[in-house]
């Protein structure tokens, strides 16, 4: 079942035609990776799904429900969480407060969700009272992902999580995402080819605001020709 579908989506940002008819379908329970060179339109795609950029035409369906005309704050309530490229962990709030802010139903993070989060990210245990601005880059990334898990959302959209992270952090992030994908669908935008293909199931390659190729990640990993054509310099 396709949890997310984009049907001929066009987006203009100011005068620029960024997305020129994006067609993609994210299958539920799989980790889909969105690849492409810089400027291809990957982040704009993420933002369009989340309603942060209104699309000029086309349809976006979440579990069969059209969401392209919804306000940006209504979309997360449907069960979609964003882990943004810049993380946006609130620096004057503690980690605990950052998580609590994300809670949509109720005042605190549900006990079972908290256990799940601590299971995925054990180091979080000692970070609760730390303020966002006192976190290292890796810790911020961890909190940003943890925040997206707070409500048990079915779809996670993760934008360039390994950016600026030390290799050891990248590895623990990889392990975390591999575990998270067992209970949620993930749409991942990531420049790091090895990282994304090691955990990805399906891939989409984006070029000039369009999806130009899609398929199974196993096929992509071994196919140097495709890699060179779409992702090479």
């Amino acid at each position: 079942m396709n949890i997310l579908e984009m049907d001929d989506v066009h987006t203009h940002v100011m005068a620029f035609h960024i997305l020129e008819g994006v067609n993609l379908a994210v299958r539920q329970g799989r980790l889909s990776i969105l690849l492409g060179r810089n400027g291809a339109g990957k982040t704009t795609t993420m933002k369009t799904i989340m309603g942060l950029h209104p699309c000029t035409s086309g349809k976006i369906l979440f579990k069969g429900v059209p969401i392209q005309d919804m306000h940006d704050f209504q979309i997360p309530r449907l069960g979609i969480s964003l882990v943004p490229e810049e993380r946006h962990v609130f620096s004057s709030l503690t980690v605990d407060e950052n998580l609590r802010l994300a809670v949509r139903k109720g005042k605190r993070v549900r006990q079972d969700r908290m256990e799940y989060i601590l299971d995925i990210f054990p180091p979080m245990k000692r970070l609760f009272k730390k303020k966002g601005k006192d976190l290292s880059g890796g810790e911020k990334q961890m909190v940003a992902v943890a925040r997206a898990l707070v409500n048990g959302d079915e779809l996670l959209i993760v934008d360039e999580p390994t950016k600026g992270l030390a290799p050891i952090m990248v590895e623990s992030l990889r392990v975390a995402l591999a575990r998270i994908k067992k209970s949620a669908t993930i749409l991942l935008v990531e420049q790091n080819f090895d990282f994304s293909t090691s955990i990805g199931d399906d891939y989409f390659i984006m070029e000039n605001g369009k999806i130009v190729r899609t398929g199974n990640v196993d096929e992509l990993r071994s196919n140097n020709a495709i890699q060179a054509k779409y992702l090479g310099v």
Partner: protein
Amino acid sequence: MSSTGLYLNLFLNGLSMGMLYFLLCSGFSLVFGFLRVLNFAHGSLIMWGAYLGVFLASALSSFSGALALTAIIIALFAVLIEYFLIRRLYGNELFQLLLTFGLIFILDQTIKLIWGPAVTPIQPPRYLQGSLMILGEPFTLYRLFIIAMGMIICTSIYLLFNKTKLGLIIRAGIQSREMVRALGIDINRIFTLVCGIGGALGGIAGFVLGYFSGLSPEMGINQIINILVIVVIGGLGSFTGTAAAAIIVGLTESFVGFYMPEFAVVGIFIVMFVVLSIKPSGLFGEV
């Protein structure tokens, strides 16, 4: 005459002035920090709080009742202004500024129309008149009341910011409105709420001010100037900065007013120039 008594008196006077300034600035600073809207009409809202408050107090024969009612009414003013006027101009900071600026004319002139241009001194209720003797120096009861009000409001705001979900949203929203929306929170509704709180704070401040310095149609403009200077000293966007600056300015005015009375009026500006030349972004400001 003991000089400790004198210093204490000057200190307490300064503290009460500082608390009054804090009350006056709090609504403005909150709205600016969260909405990034410079509400030039805040002084006029304060003035409305004063005039309305005094009027209600005699109509209802109740000081505290009038205080509460004034806060609610001015909060409503602010909500209406945000919802019908400011909201139309989101994204355009210059015009938001000009809008609130235009509101000054409307609010101030309406007061002149209703209550006339005269300056009227107002007496606080009997139980707040008179003074205490502290170490041989008189300290008016009303100033004590101001300090108490200041602390109550300060504590309430602290509790709101740090112990409620709304406060969480406000603190986060000050940093990144987009991310708050990305978490599924309708921040526009919160804007309206915060404007309401700002209005209520302004109403309360005006009420307290009215009984302190009397009513005058110049009040609005005079206060907004004070507010702007204090907020600049404290650092734009920092609520703690505003609070600190308010106290500092109050204390400075008290001591300067005693030792160098000719400079009293410009004391506030001197503090601003001094602070800005050392730290251009203000005490707690982050540029």
